[in-house]
């Protein structure tokens, strides 16, 4: 019990927000893609991924590799094959619809009115072709439509398909309670098994139904029969009730009262929301709470809040070695910028300061915890910046020619202004040049040499040259002076 309570107390508010955001994303994917073939394939791919994880965890190497390959290929294939469905699902009228709209609620098609109108047209021998889109975008399979955007009514339908009307030969598309397009040309079916008395109107209805998830109602001008094309089936409707039932089924409008339907929708959404939350919580905990992997990282130490007057003269270490624990997924995905050691120098004083590295100094991504750190303490030496005139000395190296003495040397300038920490400058009486070889001095003269500052924290004042002129005099050793 105490373990459970300590586990609960370790959950941060950020973790709850994290789970909620991802649960909502999952719910939105469900809402946008539900009922589509792409959604079913997505579920299949998710199952494949889970199977691959299980296979990997129990050590089925070949199976795990095979499923991983299939999953990768399948993911590409569904994007290509179901591109229209994906586009339809993601094509929202506005950002609000995309983020929190529910497409099914918007569809308020007056099904009974349409069914009655269709049979009225059948009785009057008015040929008609009415398309009820599913989730798939029809833009790729239809063409030639005229935007209409009129409210569905008996009179409107009659006038569209009236024999002498200019658009009566094409199809009308009904989306929700509006006729969005008229005079639309549909693809013709090439099936050989259609009855011979079916004309072009029926072939067009069958063609569109085969190539999309739309439902097409066709009214025969010659026979006055009403048929419905959906998928590969073409069914004749006995009466308006049957047509109404078929339309409601296609439009996901169960034959119940609107209040009951809304209640059922809410229940469905609540269930989907709960499932999304549970799935995401499970994924989140398996990703972040598992402590099965330990890794060690060398992380540069960042010193912050340095007192304005001081310079950092020296530090005992430049990087710390952190031993981190977490789930293998989190440990594998660690990026260099996610882990850091930040030492606060706001309370540091002049001279040497020792800081123990605590948990508060370590920056870690959520779900990863610190097991050990080396070193446990960092020494930082702070110093006041100062300027000092320091003598320049030539660093002679090599060997002078035989019987030759370097009798005199002068350096110009003799001193340079050096900027650095005051403690460092106290110990710096001389700066040296880069090595000047004696072997290459043929006779008395002058040369130039670069000033080399040590330690590197020292800098030359801006007005000082970084090279000096060295004048020297070579003399032959007198015989009497020889050893």
């Amino acid at each position: 019990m105490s373990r459970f309570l300590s586990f609960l107390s370790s959950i941060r508010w950020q973790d709850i927000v994290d789970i909620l955001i991802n649960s909502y994303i999952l719910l939105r994917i469900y809402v946008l893609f539900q009922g589509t073939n792409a959604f079913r394939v997505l579920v299949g791919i998710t199952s494949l991924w889970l199977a691959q994880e299980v296979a990997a965890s129990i050590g089925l190497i070949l199976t795990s590799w095979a499923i991983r390959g299939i999953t990768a290929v399948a993911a590409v294939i569904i994007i290509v094959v179901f591109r229209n469905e994906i586009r339809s699902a993601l094509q929202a009228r506005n950002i609000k619809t995309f983020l929190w709209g529910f497409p099914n609620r918007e569809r308020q098609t007056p099904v009974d009115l349409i069914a009655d109108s269709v049979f009225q047209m059948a009785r009057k021998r008015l040929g008609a072709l009415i398309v009820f889109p599913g989730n798939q975008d029809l833009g790729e399979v239809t063409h030639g439509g005229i935007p209409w955007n009129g409210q569905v009514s008996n009179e409107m339908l009659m006038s569209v398909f009236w024999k002498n009307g200019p658009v009566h030969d094409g199809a009308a598309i009904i989306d929700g309670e509006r006729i969005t397009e008229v005079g639309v040309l549909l693809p013709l079916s090439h099936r050989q098994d259609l009855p011979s008395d079916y004309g072009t109107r029926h072939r067009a209805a069958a063609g569109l139904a085969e190539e999309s998830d739309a439902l097409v109602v066709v009214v025969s001008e010659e026979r006055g029969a009403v048929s419905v094309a959906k998928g590969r089936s073409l069914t004749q409707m006995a009466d308006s009730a049957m047509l109404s039932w078929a339309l409601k089924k296609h439009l996901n409008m169960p034959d119940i009262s609107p209040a009951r339907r809304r209640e059922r929708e809410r229940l469905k959404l609540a269930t989907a929301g709960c499932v999304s939350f549970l799935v995401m919580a499970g994924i989140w905990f398996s990703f972040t709470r598992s402590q099965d992997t330990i890794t060690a990282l060398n992380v540069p130490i960042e010193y912050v809040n340095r007192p304005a007057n001081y310079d950092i003269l020296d530090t005992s270490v430049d990087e710390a070695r952190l031993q981190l624990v977490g789930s293998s997924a989190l440990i594998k995905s660690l990026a260099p910028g996610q882990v850091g050691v930040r030492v606060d120098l706001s309370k540091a004083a002049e001279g040497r300061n020792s800081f123990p590295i605590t948990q508060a100094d370590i920056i870690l991504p959520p779900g990863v915890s610190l097991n050990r750190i080396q070193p446990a303490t960092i020494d930082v030496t702070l110093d006041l910046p100062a300027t000092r005139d320091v003598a320049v000395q030539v660093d002679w190296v090599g060997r002078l020619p035989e019987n030759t003495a370097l009798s005199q040397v002068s350096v110009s300038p003799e001193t340079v202004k050096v900027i650095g920490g005051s403690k460092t400058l106290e110990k710096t009486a001389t700066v040296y040049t880069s090595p000047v070889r004696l072997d290459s001095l043929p006779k008395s003269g002058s040369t130039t040499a670069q000033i080399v500052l040590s330690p590197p924290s020292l800098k030359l004042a801006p007005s000082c040259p970084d090279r000096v002129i060295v004048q020297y005099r070579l003399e032959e050793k007198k015989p009497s002076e020889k050893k």
Partner: protein
Amino acid sequence: MRFFTIFLLALFCFPWCVCPATAQEQAPSTADPAQKLVLKEALMSERVENLTPVNSGVVFPVSSGQVCCFTSFDPVPQHTIIYHRWFRRDELSTQTRLRLYPSKWATYSVIQLRETDKGPWRVEIIDQNGRVFDVLRFSITD
């Protein structure tokens, strides 16, 4: 009484016999104590023979085996202690305490050279109050 006389003689002779690395040049004790101690000559040399520096310069090969810092003071108003502080790359390597006697005095300190001594050196000549008379810079090379 005889022992007291010997003790006084020994005390008088002390400065001439305790510093094997130094040599002195004595003159009659006629300097005025009000005068200031003046460094007359300071140079680096390979060796000192008869209080004379030999092979002076600013670069000495490590093969020469030793290097000397020769200093000569004139006048020396009173008995004084000076130091030769030998630094290799700003690190104090050795310090030699030397005595000066009126009225003028020459003295030197010497270090034995090893392979690890190569590099730039300097010798500070200072009195016991830290007053710097001169800084000599030289290098030990191949």
